[in-house]
């Protein structure tokens, strides 16, 4: 153990970086939090399935970003002469009934899938955390009211509920995202509430209460950081369901509207040609499968890493 | 050197150069580093602070160390059984039958959905079981032996319905049912209040004397062990740094033992500050002459 402090200027030096990240004495708040990230990353790296999932998702993100390079012609260039071509060197995944390249549509569609996933997570996590921690911390009538509302949402299957919302709001991708978010927050709130109930009587919460902290400060600065890991894990695990719901809405024609290359809608469009041109449905189907599986496996891996007991 | 027990009889348990090592990709942790002792028909206390390896030593005797632990010894034997060479199947005949173990919190060790009396009856070895009524009588007799005033009532209780002190008595009754000849008690009274602790210890004391048992009493409480046991082994950083007759603990010579004794507050003590233990790296390696 050395009392020596490392100036931040040393960070970029490669061998020094590892030593800095694994130093027993952390000398700054930034080093302390980066060290946590680094140790988490090291644990994740030791989990092969989670790493495979991470690689798959990284590929998906790369494909989404590079879509204009992969398919410069866009997702909607029709070629009625080349309809329903099987996979070949020119069209890796074949073409659909309007002669559109399926790879191009898949790549552009990755953007839609990722956008839905990101937006839903960004909407659901704060709402779920806020409702769950408030219900858990305050208890009493606050808990009763929030949790009964929660129960109402939880008592419908999520696709049915999303269908209802989309039917009311009108089809389209924006409404699909709103509908999915409305169905996805209750389990997060339940989880955050359960975590809060175990944390609320901990001595460290009592300690901050007798420092005179307000309830909102206790929730925001002391309870939320403890709930966050399990919420992240749960959202990652639920991401598979979210993607499937989005695809389901697309399949039923209530999500992304043609000609948008949403994977569920592509799957739906291909179902008429299932016997003659299987690739129309199989390719977007496989993409949905792989993406949901990857989110699921990554969620499992994150659970092992983020579990505070593993420290 | 062949370890000898204090009473001069052939020791029941012989531990010679016991070592327990944990290997992780980052480092090697030596939890126990060459511990030797023998136990006969006597009460031997093992005292040490957290991390001294005292619990690990107790567990190693029953081969209950975690799977990652590497255990080695020149000799680890009980009677004529070599505990290190025994198969898991052979260990089943030793564990609980010939050597029993009492844990710190009885409520974690009892099955929450089974009546206390039935659990004690389960502890009777299959070959000694009789008719249900006979077994029940033996359990009731055992509950009486641990000074439970209303055995019939306690027989029908569930573990959550008994207090800590009562739970520990039940635990002792259960462990003694197969008539073991050595008892390992790992902090058996640390979870109990001080006055309840005295009662449980008195029962343990009586049973050990009556039933011709050997006892290994593992604890962090130097005072308690010294007043309860015949002989005390003091462990520090995985080694026994000192061994002495319990009644002569006050004359202990090792600076660690002396430091521990001095740092204890006592009723009737007028020192303004307590002497703080200054840990000497030499304690990690040197033997006391």
């Amino acid at each position, binding site marked *: 153990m050395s*009392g020596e402090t490392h100036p931040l200027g040393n960070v970029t030096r490669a061998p020094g970086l590892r030593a800095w990240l694994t130093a*027993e*004495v*952390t*000398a*700054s*708040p930034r*080093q*302390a939090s980066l060290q946590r990230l680094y140790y988490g990353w090291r644990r994740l790296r030791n989990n092969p399935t989670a790493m495979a999932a991470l690689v798959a998702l990284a590929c998906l993100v790369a494909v989404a970003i590079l879509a204009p390079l992969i398919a410069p012609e866009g997702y909607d260039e029709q070629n009625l002469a080349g309809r329903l071509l099987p996979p070949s060197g020119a069209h890796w995944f074949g073409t659909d009934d309007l002669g559109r390249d399926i790879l191009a549509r898949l790549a552009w569609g990755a953007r839609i899938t990722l956008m839905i996933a990101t937006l839903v997570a960004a909407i659901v996590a704060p709402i779920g955390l806020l409702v769950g921690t408030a219900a858990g911390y305050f208890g009493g009538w606050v808990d009763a009211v929030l949790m009964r509302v929660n129960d109402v949402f939880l008592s419908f299957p999520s696709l049915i509920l999303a269908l209802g919302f989309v039917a009311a709001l009108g089809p389209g991708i924006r409404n699909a995202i709103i509908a999915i978010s409305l169905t996805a927050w209750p389990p997060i709130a339940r989880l955050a509430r359960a975590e809060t109930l175990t944390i609320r009587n*901990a*001595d*460290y919460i*009592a*300690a*901050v*209460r*007798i*420092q*005179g*902290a307000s309830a909102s*400060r206790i929730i925001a*600065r*002391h309870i939320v*950081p*403890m709930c966050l890991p399990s919420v992240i894990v749960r959202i990652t695990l639920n991401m598979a369901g979210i993607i499937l719901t989005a695809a389901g809405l697309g399949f039923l024609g209530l999500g992304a509207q043609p000609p948008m290359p949403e994977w569920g809608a592509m799957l739906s469009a291909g179902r008429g040609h299932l016997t003659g041109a299987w690739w129309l449905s199989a390719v977007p189907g496989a993409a949905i499968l792989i993406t949901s599986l990857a989110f699921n496996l990554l969620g499992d891996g994150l659970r092992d890493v983020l579990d*505070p007991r593993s*420290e | 050197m062949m370890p000898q027990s204090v009473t001069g009889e052939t020791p029941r348990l012989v531990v010679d150069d016991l070592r327990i090592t944990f290997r992780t990709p980052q480092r090697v942790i030596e939890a126990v580093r060459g511990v030797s002792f023998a136990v006969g028909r006597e009460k031997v206390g093992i005292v040490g*602070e*957290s991390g001294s390896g005292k619990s690990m030593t107790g567990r190693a005797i029953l081969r209950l160390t975690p799977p990652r632990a590497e255990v080695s010894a020149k000799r680890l034997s009980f009677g004529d059984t070599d505990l290190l060479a025994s198969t898991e199947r052979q260990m089943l005949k030793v564990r609980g039958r010939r050597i029993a173990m009492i844990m710190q919190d009885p409520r974690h060790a009892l099955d929450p959905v089974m009546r206390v009396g039935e659990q004690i009856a389960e502890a009777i070895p299959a070959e000694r079981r009789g008719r249900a009524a006979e077994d029940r009588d033996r359990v009731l007799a055992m509950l009486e032996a641990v000074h439970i005033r209303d055995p019939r009532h306690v027989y029908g209780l569930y573990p959550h319905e008994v207090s800590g002190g009562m739970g520990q008595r039940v635990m002792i009754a259960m462990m003694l049912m197969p008539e073991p000849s050595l008892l390992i008690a790992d902090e058996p009274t640390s979870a109990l*209040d*001080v*006055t*309840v602790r*005295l*009662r449980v210890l*008195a*029962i343990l*004391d*009586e049973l050990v004397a009556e039933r011709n048992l050997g006892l290994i009493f593992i604890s*962090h409480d*130097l*005072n*308690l062990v*010294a*007043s309860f046991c015949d002989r005390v082994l003091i462990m520090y950083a995985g080694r026994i740094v000192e061994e002495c007759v319990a009644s002569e603990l006050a004359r202990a010579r090792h600076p660690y033992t002396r*430091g*521990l004794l001095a*740092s*204890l*507050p*006592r*009723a009737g*003590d*007028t*020192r303004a*500050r*307590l*002497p*703080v*233990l200054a840990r000497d790296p030499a304690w990690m390696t040197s033997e006391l002459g």
Partner: protein
Amino acid sequence: MIAVRDLRVSFAAATVVDGVSFHVPPEEMFGLVGESGCGKSTVLRVLCGLNPAWSGQIVIGGKAMSPVRDRAFFKDVQMVFQDPYGSLHPRHTVNTALTEPLAIHGIGGADGRVAAVLDQVGLGGAFRYRYPHQLSGGQRQRLAIARALILEPKVLLLDEPTSALDVSVQAEILNLLTDLRRQRNLTCILVSHDLAVIAHMCDRIGVMQHGRIVEELTADQLNENAARHPYTIELLAASRGYDRALGERLADE
């Protein structure tokens, strides 16, 4: 400094504290000793405002206390908890734990104050950006004490501050508390199940059983074996270790 009269606390059907009265003059350390469930920790939680459901009269620093305390109260009265593993937020560094009370009360100069209090509890600057899981039990308890002291309270409540620690570490923490109390002229209440610790630290001692103080005596009286109540005598005997004769007499009770 602290006066408690006829304090009663009930949870559901059980009466946990059943008419406790005591008085602690300024800069004195008062000890409450008793076994689990005797209500001693509940008394502390009521005093520091963590438990609002009580009846009776509590006066701290000349002010009568209501069940709900204002923010200024917490600047004067702080508490150290029993379990240093449970009383520190696992995801807050030492620095965060110590700056949080200052931020709540809008006190500036956090940097210097944190450094000073760390020095005072014997931790030093090297620990400043560590997480609790990187500290030993004794170091955690020093941090918990530092957190209680950073608001410069006048009253320090100590709930079994050393019962989760090894004896050699216990001696260090008890010495630290002795020193800090002198330096800062603190009025303290120490709760413990260990009569020896209480006798070592406190000027006056209340022995609690079943929610009542059954005997109150000075440390000198205790040391001169002037205890009268049978329960105090039993506790005293038990604190000296195992005694076969006593144990056997008790075993049948």
